[in-house]
């Protein structure tokens, strides 16, 4: 259907649309070239709404701002691409011609490689490294010189094509891209990478923008007015933090030492065979030139973390300019780290104190340390190394060096000699952890004018601008309008025996609490049709409670009604469990999936329709607060952003709980029960996303097990009534007609408002004049005139 928002004509590929002002707010944000945080329940067509509006915006206004749409997983990327494809097809049908439009998705080489042997590698890193050794610039040079080196024909073919037209216009899903690549024998990965500049829409994973090591290479050429969308962004702060944190182990240091040794051997080799290359590099460094070709090199061997701009322009310090000097420099640094790892007590220190100690013992200054990553990249390129994966650990150390010397604030080094408090055998890990999510995302906000953060569960909204340190134009959580109550959130606070239930530390292992949780599970297993998902706060607790249930015979009871499946940290096992779960849900046996609120299942897997009719959240999924890294982060948040520990913990727990709840409702014709089973949920209700909170009735926030069960029974009974798509119309979906109605109503309101405003304006000059006369000096009468009312004005007038 077609409609206008202000002057902007929007083509929407479906005949129905969900009510709400999502599009209007989105447009407002784009008009203001500002940022927004928007929460809209999943399954309400958020993606297509977003795409439809932005594409209309792109095509209608002359600026043609590019859209960069970031999502989390490959399947979400593919889904978005398919939606986009449908949208463009619809537009073409409506407009009667195909628009000049190109949309591409980008994912890792591992998913897009076509090379017969490379693509079979299991690990993404190895694929990357092998591909690089086939496609690097010097490899090609060698080939041209007639040397016998292996190259990738898919990559070579690209050079035969017009560089700005590697692939025709249109929307290319990842699948489509692969197929096209296979047909034309061209590499899909590099096609996508090189075409990014010529695309209207790019859909890829967060990391291409947030991970500074990758962003620098992939997303450098994107222009400033791009529209950035982070979808499913409720976890964005953690992604930011992870992208800047590293863990260093004894093993990685050992490998780094070996890497340094290899480098040295290579340098010696090269000195004998090709002295000139080393000399050239050296001279370039002396001149302070970043290799001019570096920018063009789509595939610089290793990535550097972002550095402040001034640093990028500076020449490399004199004491690491020579290759051999740099290698001893690296070795000294690694040896120092090794020594530090021998300490057998927990140490946490800030980068400045680390640097001071480092300087005292190794005479390594801060400045050369900062250039470490870059210098290493340059050296690796000069040496024309091909087996990059061998140098990965060395590169990690260099990245660490650069980061630790660059950022004084927002990072912490934590050395943990033992894996756990009870462990006897030391296994030291040096965590270099980023505490400030704003650091990684700052370049994004600095560079792009419109950044939109959206998700189904991103409450409380004001937390995100605070944590990520940015300003918003619009910050909105949309309610959901439903023709029937299609999901029932309830909070169970007591067992059938009226004893409160909770997973707080004091009571979580008490048999009465465990038994109450057990009977809750049994009861819901009885009444739930098909699939049921249960979330626990942690693996540890899940294990202990399962074994206790086993002892109490509860599992046997549940077994009568449902198959029981358990998530484990092992991805393979879990996917097998999921497979079985799905089968059992479909064939009528029914199943319970026991999983963890912070695990893989809670994040990425949808339980729509029969796959999830009940989600049971046992306990508030708080983070494990004894973790030193978390403690440090909490402290940082308190000191820097004035976010209090408890506020953050509770926010974090509730966003995970909301994620879990959101798993079962994936569309308007879906229905499901959402059971929050913990005494503490009662108080945290306000922190749930608006659409869940709104559906949570006051009578349902303090139930005991038996009350919950009867309420659930009633709900399921109404859900069993036939429900036609027609019933939804006008309420939870809008047809063209409804939309027009709504718009008319809104217009009426606008007109009224405008009229009111005009009236106010008419009054304005009087006020100003009066004030002027009174003040004798207009500039000083600059107070709030609206505060005056008519009567007072009159009085003023007569005064003069």
């Amino acid at each position, binding site marked *: 259907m077609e409609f206008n928002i202000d002057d902007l004509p929007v083509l929407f590929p479906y005949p129905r649309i969900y009510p709400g002002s999502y599009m209007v707010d989105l447009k407002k944000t784009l008009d203001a070239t500002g940022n927004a945080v928007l929460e809209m329940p999943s399954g309400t067509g958020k993606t297509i709404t977003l795409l439809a509006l932005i594409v209309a915006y792109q095509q209608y206004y002359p600026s043609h701002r590019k859209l960069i749409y970031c999502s989390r997983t490959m399947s979400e990327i593919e889904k978005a691409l398919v939606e986009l494809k449908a949208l463009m097809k619809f537009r073409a049908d409506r407009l009667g011609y195909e628009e000049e439009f190109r949309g591409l998705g980008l994912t890792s080489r591992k998913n897009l490689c076509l090379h017969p042997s490379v693509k079979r590698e299991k690990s993404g890193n190895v694929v990357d490294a092998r591909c690089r050794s086939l496609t690097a610039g010097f490899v090609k040079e060698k080939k041209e010189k007639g040397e016998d080196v292996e190259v990738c024909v898919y990559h070579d073919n690209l050079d035969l094509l017009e560089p700005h037209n590697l692939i025709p216009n249109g929307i290319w899903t990842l699948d489509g891209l692969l197929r096209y690549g296979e047909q034309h024998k061209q590499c899909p990965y590099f096609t996508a990478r090189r075409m990014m500049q010529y695309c209207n829409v790019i859909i890829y994973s967060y990391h291409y923008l947030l991970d500074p090591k990758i962003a620098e290479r992939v997303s450098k050429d994107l222009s400033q007015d791009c529209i950035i969308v982070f979808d499913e962004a409720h976890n964005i702060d953690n992604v930011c933090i992870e992208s800047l944190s590293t863990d260093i182990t004894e093993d990685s240091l050992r490998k780094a030492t070996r890497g340094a040794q290899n480098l040295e051997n290579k340098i010696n080799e090269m000195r004998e065979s090709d002295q000139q290359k080393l000399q050239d590099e050296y001279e370039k460094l002396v001149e302070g030139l970043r290799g001019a070709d570096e920018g063009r090199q789509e595939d610089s061997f290793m990535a550097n973390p972002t550095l402040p701009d001034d640093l990028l322009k500076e020449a490399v310090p004199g004491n690491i300019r020579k290759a051999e000097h740099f290698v*001893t420099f690296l070795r000294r640094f690694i040896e120092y780290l090794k020594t530090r790892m021998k300490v057998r007590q927990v140490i946490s220190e800030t980068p400045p104190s680390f640097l001071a100690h480092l300087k005292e013992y190794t005479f390594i200054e801060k400045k050369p340390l900062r250039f470490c990553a870059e210098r290493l990249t340059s050296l690796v390129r000069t040496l024309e190394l091909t087996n990059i994966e061998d140098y990965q650990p060395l590169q990690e150390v260099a990245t660490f060096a650069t980061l630790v010397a660059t950022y004084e604030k927002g990072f912490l080094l934590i050395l943990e000699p033992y894996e756990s408090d009870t462990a006897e055998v030391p296994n030291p890990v040096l965590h270099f952890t980023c505490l400030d999510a704003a650091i990684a995302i700052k370049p994004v906000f600095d560079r792009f004018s419109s950044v939109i953060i959206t998700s189904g569960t991103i409450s409380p909204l004001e937390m995100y601008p605070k944590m990520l340190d940015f300003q918003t134009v619009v910050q909105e959580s949309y309610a959901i309008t439903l023709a029937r109550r299609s999901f029932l959130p309830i909070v169970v606070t007591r067992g059938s025996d009226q004893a409160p239930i909770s997973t707080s530390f004091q009571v979580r292992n008490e048999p009465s609490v465990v038994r109450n949780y057990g009977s809750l599970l049994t009861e819901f297993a009885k009444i739930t049709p098909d699939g049921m998902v249960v979330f626990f706060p942690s693996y540890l607790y899940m294990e202990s409670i399962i074994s206790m249930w086993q002892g109490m015979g509860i599992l046997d009871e549940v077994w009568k009604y449902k198959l029981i499946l358990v998530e484990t940290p092992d991805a393979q096992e879990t996917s097998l469990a999921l497979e079985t779960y799905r089968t059992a849900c479909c064939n009528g046996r029914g199943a319970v999936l026991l999983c963890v609120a912070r695990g893989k299942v809670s994040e990425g897997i949808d339980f729509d329709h029969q796959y999830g009719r009940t989600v049971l959240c046992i306990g508030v999924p708080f983070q494990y607060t004894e973790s030193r890294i978390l403690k440090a982060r909490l402290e940082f948040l308190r000191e820097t952003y004035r976010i209090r520990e408890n506020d953050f913990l509770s926010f974090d727990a509730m966003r995970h709980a909301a994620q879990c709840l959101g798993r079962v409702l994936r569309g308007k014709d879906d229905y499901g029960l959402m059971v929050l089973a913990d005494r503490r949920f009662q108080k945290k209700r306000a922190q749930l996303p608006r659409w869940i909170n709104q559906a949570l009735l006051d009578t349902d926030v303090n139930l005991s097990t038996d009350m919950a069960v009867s309420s659930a029974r009633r709900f399921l009974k109404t859900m069993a009534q036939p429900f036609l798509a027609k019933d939804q119309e006008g309420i939870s979906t809008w047809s063209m007609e409804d939309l027009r109605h709504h718009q008319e109503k809104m217009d009426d309101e606008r007109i009224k408002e405008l009229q009111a405003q005009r009236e106010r304006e008419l009054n304005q000059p009087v006020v100003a004049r009066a004030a002027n006369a009174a003040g004798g000096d207009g500039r000083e009468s600059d107070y709030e005139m609206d505060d005056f009312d008519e009567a007072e004005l009159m009085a003023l007038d007569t005064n003069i």
Partner: protein
Amino acid sequence: MSRKAPPGARGAGASTSNGTTSSAPALPTISTEDMCPVCKTIRYLNKDMEFLINPECYHSMCSNCVNRLFNDGPNQCPYAGCNRTLRRKGFRSAFFGDLAVEREVDIRRRVAAVFNQAEDDFETLRDYNNYLQMVEDLTFDLVSGGEAQRRTAEATLGRWEAEHKAEIERNRKAGREADEQSRRRLAAERDAARQRRVEALQEAEEEKRERVRNREAELDNLALGDAGAGAGGAQRVQLKRRGQAAANRAVEAAVHTAVAAAADVGRLSIRGLKEKKKAPAPEGPYDPFAGLDFVPGRYKLHTGLGHPGIDKYKDDPAHITGGYSFDEYTARAMFEAFAGLGVFIEDEMEAGIGLSAGEVATMSAGIAAVGDRMELD
């Protein structure tokens, strides 16, 4: 994709890099970590075995051996082929696992003590970088150069030390001071952080207590029959307290910039090293107006000056709002009245106070313009 096998003896690695045969003592590898190469004791038998080295030759041995061999005075190193004479008090435990690095760092310590120029001592960054490379080259010669290279490097080192004695001393002092300062700053920051942590805890504690108290008060109120009276007020108090605590938390870390005492020494042999100037006189606190006095010289301002023209506004709410002061107005009126009195253009031109006639003209034009606008307003 064949990977080079890691070479077994890492100790020798440093010396191969410039291709000359090295006369630096051959260093043992660290695989001996659990066995003393002298007496062959293994750690299994002696849990607290400790290894010591002597920077004469960096051969490591267990403390028992050291005591046994060197307690009765200087003795020869027990390693085969090592003919150095070692003393008991030269032994220490190594910081690094890799003794080659240990030795390198010892050398660096010596070099750094002599070559301690900072970036500020150089005209350009490039000069500084060249200097850094020169030092690095020299260090490299000392660490892994051949006999001849080592000797020349030593000589350079000695010469430099002799020539730049005063400067080195000064830089050393400055460096020590800077270190001391950064250490103090770190300590201060740590203390402040601890302080804040404690405060936050107390605050949370206090809040909890407050909440309990409020709840009790509320209950009491309920019992007395006037519900709701306590709750709102208490909450407000709590919020206020929170804000206050936040304000208190602003802790300042004092940073002193070291004023390096200048000394006029040094025949320079490094390009780009800045000539030293006399230390600037210590400055007083910064005055943005450069000593200009704003107290009017020709008249005295009284507060509460009145005039019938303005008196009627004194009760007018439009003019007694915050930020507007009648004294401001009268002060300005007085200033305008007196401005320009006592300026004798001829005198100033004779005395030649900076301004040219043209400038004076534009200035007065500007003043006139300002005056005009004021009148228009």
